[in-house]
């Protein structure tokens, strides 16, 4: 396979609080033969501002984003939510062709693995019972898997990849694709509902007696982790990249 130049986009909160997720993503992409570049001046996609209504304040983020990811074939990020934001809302700004290129070649990690790299097998081993959390922006926004509301054939790109991991036992919760309640600033401005949604999500995974909850968005996992820890639960959260990269 000709080596393709992949720009690794590490969302700001992953960079600061979950570096292991970015490391796993980097290693996984390298293992699969990609030439990965990590632009060192990257910051944030601007989604937290835009989702709060302040898309007028995101110009700086956008300019910086385009400058960092101008020269790559693909941009890949371990976050469905940030990828969706760029895809839907990155304006043309002063460099329309660069922006168009980025919007059409930015991928969430699992969709990049299945749709572009067309991965069919992985050298991964993870002998645990894993609950999968479908994050809304990845699932409904990017179409990473089928959605229960729609009358469509079932599929799931992340589940397909998890299926290539040795020793794993994957378990979907009963409400397969209900939102966990993170929702960006929703988690603080609507604290009560956000927490209740999260508690209901983890309860289903707890009743399935999983060891780990995984998903394609660290933001959702961070919210669930915060609740699990407060409850003193033994269940850990891990981003899907960490599991796919586990040997």
């Amino acid at each position, binding site marked *: 396979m000709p080596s393709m130049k992949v720009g690794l986009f*590490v969302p*700001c909160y992953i*960079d*600061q*609080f*979950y*570096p292991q997720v*970015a490391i796993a993503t*980097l290693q996984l992409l390298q293992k699969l033969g990609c030439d990965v570049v*990590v632009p*060192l*001046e*990257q910051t*944030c996609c*601007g989604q*937290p*501002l*835009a*989702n*709060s*209504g*302040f*898309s007028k*304040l*995101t*110009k*700086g*983020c956008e300019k*910086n984003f385009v400058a960092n990811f101008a020269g790559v074939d693909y941009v890949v990020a371990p976050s469905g939510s940030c990828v969706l934001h760029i895809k839907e809302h990155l304006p043309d700004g002063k460099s329309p062709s660069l922006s168009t290129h980025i919007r059409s070649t930015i991928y969430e990690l699992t969709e990049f693995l299945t749709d572009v790299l067309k991965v069919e097998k992985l050298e991964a081993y993870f002998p645990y019972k894993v609950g999968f959390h479908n994050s*809304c922006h990845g699932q*409904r*926004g990017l179409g990473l898997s089928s*959605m*229960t*509301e*729609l*009358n*469509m054939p079932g599929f799931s790109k992340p589940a397909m990849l998890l299926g290539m991991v040795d020793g794993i036992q994957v378990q979907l919760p009963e*409400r397969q*694709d*209900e939102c966990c*309640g993170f929702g960006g600033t*929703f*988690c*603080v*401005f*609507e*604290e*009560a*509902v*956000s*927490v*209740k*949604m999260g508690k*209901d999500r983890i309860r289903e995974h707890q009743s399935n007696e999983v060891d780990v909850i995984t998903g394609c968005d660290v933001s959702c996992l961070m919210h669930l*982790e*915060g*609740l699990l*820890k*407060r409850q003193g639960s033994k269940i850990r959260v891990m981003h899907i990249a960490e599991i796919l990269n586990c040997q």
Partner: protein
Amino acid sequence: MKKKHAELAEVFNADESMTDWHDETLWWIRQKRDRSAHNIPEWEQLRQWASDIKAHTLSNLDYYLEEFERNAIANGIKVHWARDAAEHNAIIAGIIRENGVSRVVKSKSMLTEECHLNDHLKDLGIEVVDTDLGERIVQLRDEPPSHIVLPAIHLKKEEVSKTFHQKLGTELGNHDPVYLTSAARDHLRERFIEAELAITGVNFAVANTGEFVVCTNEGNADMGAHLAKVHIAAMGIEKLIPSQKHLGVFTRLLARSATGQPITAYTSHFRTPARGRAIHIVLVDNGRSRLLGQEDFRNSLKCIRCGACFNTCPVYRRSGGHSYHTAIAGPIGSILSPNLDLKANADLPFASTLCGSCSNVCPVKINIHEQLWKWRQVIADKKQFGLFKRLSMRVTATVLSSPFVYRITGRMARWVLRNWPAMINRKSINPWYKQREMPEAPKESFREWYVKNGQL
């Protein structure tokens, strides 16, 4: 000042078992909806047709409204036009007065809720009785409906029993739904017989025939309209469809989306008044043409009020209809209400995680979550936020625009979290921390790790 969604939702959540019950009841309806929608192979095609028919109608609304008016008048229906809620209320009160009537029955109309007709008529000394069971329950409790299809879904049968005992004299402590329903039925029968005038809503109005269609499960709209001498139908101007052949698309979608039924028990067509009787129709704008004029929000006029977006919304299920403090709650209400009063309803587009489930269930494919996102931009532009939020967003934008400042800030934040967690971990200042632990702060950011180890 009116309480905001987040505050009201917190009150709702104080009784967790009630929240669970509300959530599970509505989820059960969502599952019924799924089963019946997934049983129809062409479901997604139907949604597309419905959306397209509505788009076509909306872009030719003036033409179809005039066509409808012409045909309705030819059928003997009296047509009235109302610019806003006040005109709507005045027209209806006028018709009631002209007919010298003091007792009115009403059924299936969220529009009259939107216009606060009941209060208006009450002030004029006219008695209005809502005849849908759920509507009657909330009316007896002096509450607004909490759901457009299931108005009393926030109440358990024990609560209903208490209300009926107080207001209708039913047996104290008898919670049997059959007993309660039949008590309500007897009570309502009397009102139907006494009523001289009936008000109903309209589900669909057909331009090429001048008829209108009312869909119900209880048959009460028909009972009211057939017993009373005068029938007033109140209709939002967006309820129009071009011709009868389009109707089937919507009747197939409506009940399935609402409750998972294949069709409502009654789908009644009203076309010509019977001899000696009168039918009036009030065509109401009340902000609708303003929505029509805004491309970003025009699609919301496709809504057929099935309530599916309520039942699927994980926020609605856990905050209850009253937390939306408007006649139409839920995701679609959060789009429609800012159009009616931006200031009073600026919190509603934020009562969502933008998960997108609403847009997926919507039978007319309204891009609900995208419109919520767009309202947020309008609200920020119109400075509907406090100074603190605006300033903090500005600071965030500055930090994130500069790689250097971003790195320093990140490092400081991690340092504080590691070495001085008490600074952040205070429930009074950090809503995250109230019921959740903060993420652990690593010594190194990914970038720091990468600079050291990445490019070996």
